[in-house]
C-alpha cells in the first residue's frame, strides 16, 4: 500500500514536468515540423515536400544570415566570459559577507526592468543626439554629433549586457565550491598567479564556464529585440527572418523550416563546443 502511494506520488509530482514537455515543447515542435514540410503550390493548395529546406540552401542569403548570427553570438559569448570571469572570481573568492551579497545583487538589478526598457536605455545613451555623443563633444574629442547606434558594435554591447548575469551565476557557484586551501597550496608549491589560474582555477570552473557559455550563446542566438533595435539597417538576425516569414510574409511553411534549422544548427554548435572542450552535458549540469 505504501509502495503504491509512493509510486502514485512520484507520478503526480512528475505530471507538471511531463505536461510541460509534451504540451509546450514536443507537440508544437512536431506540428512545426509537419508545417515546414508543406509547399504552397497554388491558392490554398499545399503539397508535402522538402522545398522549404531547399530554399535555405539555394538562396545563399539565408545561410549567410545564420552564419553571421552564429558568429556574432559566439563572439558575444566570448566577450561576456572575459568580462564575467574576473567579476565572478572577485565575488566568489575576494569579496566577503555583505559586500559579496551586494555585488551579486548589483548583477541582478538590471533584470528588474524588462528587456525592452533596458534596450531603450542603450538607445538613449548611444543615439546621435544622445548622452554619449553629447559628452564626447563637450569633452572636445569630436566637434560634431557621432552616431554610435545602428552598427554591429552596438548589437554586441546590447547582447553582452543582456547576458552578463547568466554567465556570472554559474561561474560564482562553481568557484565558491573551490576550496581556498587548494589555491594556497598552489602558491606554496611555487606557482605563479598565471599558473595557479591555468592549472587549478580554470579546470575547476570548467563545467561552470561551459554551462554559462551554453546559456549565453543560446540567449544571444535567440535574441530578437536587441539586434533589431540597436542594429538598425544592417541588423539582419536569424530570428528576425523567422518573424518576418511568419508575420509579414504569411509564409508559415518557410518560417517553420527556418525555426527547425535554427534548432538543429544551434544544437550542433553546442555539441561541437562540448566536444572541443572535452566536457559532457551531464558534467555542466552539476
Amino acid at each position: 500500500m505504501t509502495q503504491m502511494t509512493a509510486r502514485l506520488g512520484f507520478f503526480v509530482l512528475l505530471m507538471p514536468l511531463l505536461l510541460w514537455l509534451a504540451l509546450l515543447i514536443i507537440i508544437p515542435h512536431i506540428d512545426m515540423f509537419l508545417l515546414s514540410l508543406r509547399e504552397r503550390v497554388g491558392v490554398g493548395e499545399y503539397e508535402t515536400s522538402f522545398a522549404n529546406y531547399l530554399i535555405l540552401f539555394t538562396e545563399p542569403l539565408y545561410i549567410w544570415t545564420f552564419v553571421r548570427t552564429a558568429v556574432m553570438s559566439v563572439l558575444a559569448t566570448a566577450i561576456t566570459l572575459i568580462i564575467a570571469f574576473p567579476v565572478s572570481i572577485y565575488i566568489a573568492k575576494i569579496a566577503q559577507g555583505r559586500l559579496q551579497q551586494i555585488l551579486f545583487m548589483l548583477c541582478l538589478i538590471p533584470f528588474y526592468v524588462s528587456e525592452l526598457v533596458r534596450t531603450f536605455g542603450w538607445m538613449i545613451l548611444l543615439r546621435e543626439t544622445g548622452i554619449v555623443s553629447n559628452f564626447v563633444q563637450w569633452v572636445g574629442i569630436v566637434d560634431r554629433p557621432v552616431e554610435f547606434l545602428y552598427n554591429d558594435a552596438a548589437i554586441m554591447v546590447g547582447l553582452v549586457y543582456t547576458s552578463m548575469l547568466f554567465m556570472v551565476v554559474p561561474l560564482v557557484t562553481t568557484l565558491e565550491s573551490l576550496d581556498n586551501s587548494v589555491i594556497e597550496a598552489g602558491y606554496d608549491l611555487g606557482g605563479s598567479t598565471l599558473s595557479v589560474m591555468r592549472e587549478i582555477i580554470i579546470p575547476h570552473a570548467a563545467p561552470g564556464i561551459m554551462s554559462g557559455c551554453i546559456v549565453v550563446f543560446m540567449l544571444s542566438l535567440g535574441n530578437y529585440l536587441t539586434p533589431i533595435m540597436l542594429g538598425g539597417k544592417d541588423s539582419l538576425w536569424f530570428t528576425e527572418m523567422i518573424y518576418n516569414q511568419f508575420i509579414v510574409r504569411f509564409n508559415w511553411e518557410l518560417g517553420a523550416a527556418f525555426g527547425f534549422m535554427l534548432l538543429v544548427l544551434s544544437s550542433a554548435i553546442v555539441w561541437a563546443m562540448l566536444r572541443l572542450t572535452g566536457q559532457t552535458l551531464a558534467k555542466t549540469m552539476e
Partner: protein
Amino acid sequence: MKSGFKFLKHTFSVFAIGAVAVQGANAETLRLLTWGGYAPDDVVEMFKAETGHTVEVTKSNNEEMIAKLRATRGGGFDLAQPSQDRILGPQLEFGIYKPIDISRIDQGQFIQSMLSATMANTTVEGRVYGVPHVWGTSGLVMDTAAAGDIVKDYTDLCDPAVAGKVSYRLKRPTLIGFAFAMGMDPFAAYSDEAAYKDIMDKVESKLIDCKPNVKTYWGGGDELMGLVRSGEVVASMAWDTGGWKLNADNPNITFVAPTSGALGWIDTFVLPAKGRADDAAYDWINFVMRPEIAAKITAAAGNFTASSGADAFAEESLKARYQASFPAVAIDNIKWYPPVPGGLEAIEGAVLDRVKAAQ
C-alpha cells in the same frame, strides 16, 4: 456530500441569472481587432451606454491581424480592420473572413464612392467582405527647411545632399512607392507575376544603391517620430498623420505628397469567419459611421473616415494641415492600393530580405 453539490448548483444558477439580468437581453461583448486610435475610450463608453455591448479592443497592424486570424482560422475576434487591399488574397488563401450582410449596414452614412470602391475591391466569389472605415495616405514626412528643396519624390531620398539623414520602412509600401517614383506601375503588373518580379528587381537594386544614404529603417511610428523630432532624420517615407502630428510641434516639419503620387489606403471593417457577436459588430459599424462619432475617431487617429458629413465636425487645424499637404492636383494623383493577389508577398519578401542583408 450530495447536499453540497446541490448547494453549489443553486449558487451557480443564482449567479447565472444575476449575470443575465445585469447584462440585458441582447448585450454582447465585441472583440475588436483594430489599429491604435480607431476605438477611443470615449466612443467605446458611448457605445456601451447606448447599446449595452461592451467592446474589447486589441491594437494591431495589417500583417499581425491576418497572422492572428490565420492562427485561429478566423476565431478569437468578432470584428477586424485590415486594409482593403489585404482582404481578397488572405480570404482566397486562408478563408478567415465571412461575408458582410450589406442590408444590415446603414449605407447612407458612407461616402458613396468610397463605399462602392471598397465593396468592389473586397468582393470574393460574388460576396462582399469589407466596408470602408478610415482612409489616409503615405508619402514623405520632412523638415522642409532642411530637405524641402531636395526631396520631392521617394527616389530623392537617395540624393547625396541628405546622406545619412533619411529613413524609410523596409516594407511593401516602400517597394511600391519607389517603383512609382522610378516611372513604373507596379499595380498594373499585379496580375502578371513575371512582370511584377521584373519591377521588384529594379527596385531592389535601387534600394541597395540607396542603402548608404539611410540612417536606419524605422519599424514603428514612435521610432520615426523620435528620429524626426530630434533632427537626426530630415526626410522619411511615412503616413500623413505622422507628419501632421509633428507639424503641431515644429511648423517646419510636415507631410508632403510626392510628385509621383501619395499611396492611398483604406482600412475596412471585416467579420472574422468564426466571430460570435455579429449583432454587436453591425451595431458598432453603424454607430461609428455617424458623422459626430466619426469626427471623434478622426480626432483620435488623425485620419479622415469614410463617413459622409463628418468633415463638418473635424478640427480646423487638422483640416488646414490636410489642405496644405494636398492641393487638388495631389488628391487626384493619389494611387489607391488595389487588392494584392496571393503569392506576391513571397516576391516582395525575398527582395526585402536581400536589401536588408546587403552591405
